[in-house]
């Protein structure tokens, strides 16, 4: 089963209440939020309503919130090689 990965790229501020309602229904509260929904005609219709604001990808598995955050976090770029005596 595949999922839509929907990211809000442009804010819904200034759009009609109806469009903003669609974003709220999708759970997209602010820009760059990412949500996952199974691929169904209902969700496809919702995406069509806000297609100018979001980017959509089809993925195999939904990611958890923590995984999405880990994707965005840069690597530390260092590790402790030799610890001083403490």
């Amino acid at each position, binding site marked *: 089963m595949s999922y839509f990965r929907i990211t809000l790229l442009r804010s819904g501020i200034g759009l009609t209440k109806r469009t903003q309602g669609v974003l709220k229904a999708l759970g997209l509260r602010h820009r760059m939020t990412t949500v996952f929904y199974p691929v169904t005609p209902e969700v496809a219709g919702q995406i069509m309503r806000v297609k100018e604001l979001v980017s959509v990808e089809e993925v195999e598995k939904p990611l958890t919130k923590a995984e999405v955050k880990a994707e965005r976090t840069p690597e530390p770029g260092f590790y402790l090689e030799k610890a001083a005596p*403490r």
Partner: protein
Amino acid sequence: MKFVGLIALCLNRLNPDFRGQNIKLPAIEDNSDQHQGICNALGRLQITFTFAFTMFSRTIRRSILDSKISSTALPPTFLLPIRARQFNSTTQHVETPPGDLDASQFPTKSPSQLAESAAPVPKTLRSRIPPLAPAPIPNSIALDPSVKEMLPLLIAQPSHYISVHIHGKPYLVTGGDSVRLPFQMPGVIPGDVLRLNRASALGSRDYTLKGTPYVDERIFECRATVMGTEAEPMRTKEKKKRRNRRINTVKSKHKYTILRIGEIKINGLDDIES
């Protein structure tokens, strides 16, 4: 004396390779100022001059040809914005991290054992310890042919610079540099040796190896020693709301970790693929 300082500064500005030498020149200057007579000092100046001239005559010529700014137009080193910070005057704060590190958490074990020992650590504590050594990259992954071709040329040149990324932020350094991180690194104490393994560029005077986005970490070895923390001067900010006389003063004094970059070593092709 001043002129030597300026030459050194000029070299430093134009060519990061000569930072090591730059440190030596002011040292000579200091000595002669304090302990020796003027004649002696002049002698030393001459020696310094000839030394500088023979060593970097090409660089000087270049600097004269390239830069439109005359050397007298440059401000003295201590007035450059990066040196003019007041941080150096504040005292060092050395503290042991609150959660004492368990020896079992250090990369003396295999990755699987590490995973086991790291599991019971509570989440709040785990974020306070520095990251552990990643699994080594298998040598079977071959380097790009263009890298193979040019790497010996890069190694052959003397001093190297590297653009290391710590938490995604780049720091362009050479061996011996000290870096003041814009944050206090949790879980480290002075004397700890960190291995820096993410670099976006690695180069010498004529060659640069650019990463996509990072350079293969088998190619270089770059270590940094934690020197301690520095504190900024206390900042106060007055918070005032309209139509209300109350003023709230907020104080803040941040601490920053200082790292000293060790020698940058570039591994040869034999070391990487054997």
